[in-house]
């Protein structure tokens, strides 16, 4: 936990009309670790992700990624720099197969131009075949989705779609992987699979992970670092254990209740 931060969010505020979605949010994401952002519904978690992605422009504050400022950098360039993400409401492209969806992730790192593409010679063909081999060997095998590679994404179960989204994000050559509710709506088995994949991505690929998640059991199990948002503000951050013991968190999160108790109960149920 002493690694230098790869992502620094400092003083970010975002408002839609009169509604303040984010209010002076600051936190850092240490490199090579798993950081979770938690908070009640409407706390601003997804707005935070969209701001980091470059989809929303914050009214104030700045975001630095890998030592460089992201101010004025548009969403596609952020993706090209290694900011990969998945979406809360799965954003796969229904008109493409699983394989093409994953290939799409590499877009920003490819060089094929229109002329190469029209004739499909030289660079275009070489690039496509290299990409195909890499996706097959590194991503499809790793995520165990060989059987669906030619399926149309619309026909897949929710859990598999989430896995394909992860595959696409991995194809983006991520330096940081932002996962928006990676296990929402999944059953226990699917959740465990996804948790295992996330841990493997961290360990085998050496990719930093920033995730938004409601499943407290999973958050407490796999994260190294937790940031708690409420009403657009950071109310606590630290290790899972520190956060669980934080009174402000407990009050904000459950009104009256104990996040630790909930987490323990979930774990007990899972066991």
């Amino acid at each position, binding site marked *: 936990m002493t690694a230098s931060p790869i992502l620094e969010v400092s003083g970010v505020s975002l408002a839609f009309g009169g509604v303040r979605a984010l209010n002076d949010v600051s936190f850092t994401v240490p490199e090579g670790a798993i950081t979770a952002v938690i908070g009640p519904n409407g706390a601003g978690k997804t707005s935070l992700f*969209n701001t980091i992605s470059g*989809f929303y422009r914050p009214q104030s504050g700045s975001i630095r990624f890998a030592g460089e400022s992201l101010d004025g950098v548009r969403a596609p360039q952020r993706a090209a720099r290694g900011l990969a993400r998945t*979406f809360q409401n799965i*954003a796969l492209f229904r008109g493409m197969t699983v394989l093409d969806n994953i290939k799409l992730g590499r877009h920003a790192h490819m060089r094929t131009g229109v002329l190469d593409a029209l004739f499909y010679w030289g660079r275009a063909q070489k690039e496509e075949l290299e990409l195909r081999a890499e996706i097959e060997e590194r991503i499809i095998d790793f995520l165990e989705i060989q059987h669906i590679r030619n399926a149309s994404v619309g026909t897949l179960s929710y859990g598999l779609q989430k896995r394909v989204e992860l595959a696409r994000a991995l194809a983006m050559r991520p330096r940081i992987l932002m996962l928006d509710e990676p296990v929402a709506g999944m059953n226990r088995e699917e959740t465990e699979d996804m948790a295992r994949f996330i841990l493997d991505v961290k360990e085998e690929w050496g990719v930093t992970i920033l995730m938004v998640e409601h499943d407290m059991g999973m958050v407490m199990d796999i994260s190294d670092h937790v940031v708690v948002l409420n009403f657009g503000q950071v109310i606590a951050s630290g290790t899972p254990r520190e956060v669980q013991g934080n009174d402000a968190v407990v009050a904000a999160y459950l009104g009256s209740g104990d996040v630790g108790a909930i987490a323990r109960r979930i774990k007990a149920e899972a066991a």
Partner: protein
Amino acid sequence: MDTLFLAEVTLAGLGAGALYALTGVAFVLIYKATRVVNLAIGEILMLGGYAFLGFAAGLGLSPWLALPLAIAAGGALGWLVERALIRPMLGESPISVFMVTIGLGSILAGVVQLGWGADPLRLPEFMPSTPVFIGEAYLAPKVAIGFVAAAVVIGLFLALFRFSRGGVALKATAADQGAAYSVGIDVPRVFSVAWILACATAAGAGVLIGAIGGISPTMGVFGLSVLVVVIIGGLDSIAGALVGGLLIGLVEALAGAFLGGEFKLVVTFALLLVLLMVRPYGLFGTHEIERL
């Protein structure tokens, strides 16, 4: 510049603009209720003119009986189109539905040509022909009557939207079809009524336009100008249709008078392009907020 001439051109432009506005309101009515961009509106209008001709000249009825019959025929067509073509397309992409109406327009134009031939025809005279002068400026009596009729019908519509239960149902449907349905509004009936009213209005406008300039199977291009009107006003805004209609009528009349008839279309479309760049959703249209 001759001010009298300018005044006469302006009056003629406003007269034509009132008919654009009337057809534009019909267009917006359909769009608000069903989210369908009905490009066949020009052909439905044309059919109104031909129906009037059929009733008045073909069956020899009095024009004052033929007029309501033509309007009713338009309404019946609207009902049929909504049932047979639009409802099966529910949930399809807006572009597909838009193309269905283009196909419908083509069918209607073909049917009219098959029945009445390709040549332009004149409608029987039924309006008074006393010249109208506003100040010193002369206004063709038919144009004046068209203006008054359009104003009355639009006024009726506005009152209906504002004060009737149907108007509330329309507003609710326009805002959110699912929510409107779940609070007990009979959304399919709103669809049906909107199409009937809009097509009846278009047919009536067709009779007015036909009385002024004659009718022909290519009259459907009027729909293209109406499209410009509603895009400029904003697809879902009645006020937009009014302002857009008068504006386009005026611009066309001025362009026709000072630049030449062939400039009419190009000037309005150039205006449209400029406006789209500045205000992508028209003067009064609702901007849809996009979500990730």
